[in-house]
């Protein structure tokens, strides 16, 4: 028939069968949260940003393709649309990150007050460059633009907290603290943002539903046992 088309350098693209639902890994809590958040919007797709935050939390701090597929499936939209949204916003991590993310501002005010020194110091201390993760998976160092806290320059965002008026000494102490702390992790940041999307009553609702499900499944287990 026709001449074979020589685009041989490229392997044939992987094909995804959209009719097969992707593997679902959201926890019961995540499902409950997404259920509530969806009700805030006129259509399901509008809940994409909080849904991605839930996914970022559920998938341990970043969004692998499977996470995007799960969000797309749960919102009834196509995989590509979710990927488009996720790649548009910088706070969704598309690649694996460390347990804690150190985001150092080097915008105008911070750089005048020593933002770059802080960054260099961190690079030296952690032995990585900005944008990289330490080999032990503890820290990811990122250079970011204005964090809107110029009064406390130089500023660094760690998870859900800002640390201002930094000096190298302060940073050292902070690092030690963070190493042993469960606070301010990437996952925790995602959770904080998810909780911002829920009202107090909704949060209580979820707790009740989870407790009920727990009791129900516990009861069943008991029966089975």
């Amino acid at each position: 028939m026709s001449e074979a088309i020589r685009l041989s350098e490229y392997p044939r693209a992987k094909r995804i069968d959209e009719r097969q639902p992707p593997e679902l890994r959201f926890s019961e809590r995540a499902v409950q949260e997404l259920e509530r958040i969806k009700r805030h919007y006129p259509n399901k797709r509008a809940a994409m940003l909080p849904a991605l935050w839930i996914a970022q939390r559920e998938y341990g701090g970043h969004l692998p393709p499977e996470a995007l597929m799960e969000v797309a499936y749960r919102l009834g939209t196509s995989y590509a649309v979710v990927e488009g949204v996720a790649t548009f916003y910088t706070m969704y991590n598309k690649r694996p990150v460390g347990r804690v993310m150190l985001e150092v501002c080097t915008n105008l005010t911070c750089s005048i007050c020593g933002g770059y020194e802080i960054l260099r110091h961190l690079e030296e201390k952690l032995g990585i460059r900005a944008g990289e993760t330490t080999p032990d998976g503890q820290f990811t160092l990122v250079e970011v633009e204005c964090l809107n806290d110029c009064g406390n320059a130089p500023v660094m965002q760690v998870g859900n907290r800002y640390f201002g008026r930094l000096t190298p000494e302060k940073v050292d102490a902070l690092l030690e603290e963070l190493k042993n702390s469960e606070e301010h992790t990437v996952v925790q940041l995602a959770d904080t943002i998810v909780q911002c999307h829920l009202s107090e009553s909704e949060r209580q609702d979820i707790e009740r539903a989870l407790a009920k499900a727990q009791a129900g499944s516990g009861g069943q287990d008991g029966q089975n046992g």
Partner: protein
Amino acid sequence: MITQVAKRFVKTVLPLAQGLSITFRHQPPFHEPITVEYPEQKRPMYPRTRWRHVLRRYDNGLERCIGCSLCAGACPARCIYVEAAENTDEHRFSPGERYARRYEINMLRCIFCGYCQEACPTGAIVLRDDYELADYHRSDFIYTKEMLLEPIPEPQEE
């Protein structure tokens, strides 16, 4: 009367002599011959003479032609046929993605206007000074890519 005859003589013969003097001045003892013994001798061509087409190559031997068909589009006689195909790393004919798999010029149709040369974005097709294009069969006037392509240049001596 005699003066009249003399006048008429001068009037007729002098221009003749003048004319012939030009003729004689261009004759061998006074002037090099202009005609050349054609098949043995060839007159040098002007640098911008437009005769037989040549498809040029780069110094590294790759074809310049990328099969873009712009020459065919520019050709007022519609005598160029180009069929392009895709280069691969194993079979590379030209730099880039595309090369001409078939490149044919119908020399019977060609009017040697040189528009193809002008249209060519890579300077691949040029009209050179080979004017000996006569042949015995119509089909022989379809010049294929193999006939048109320059030989691969010899590697330059250091």
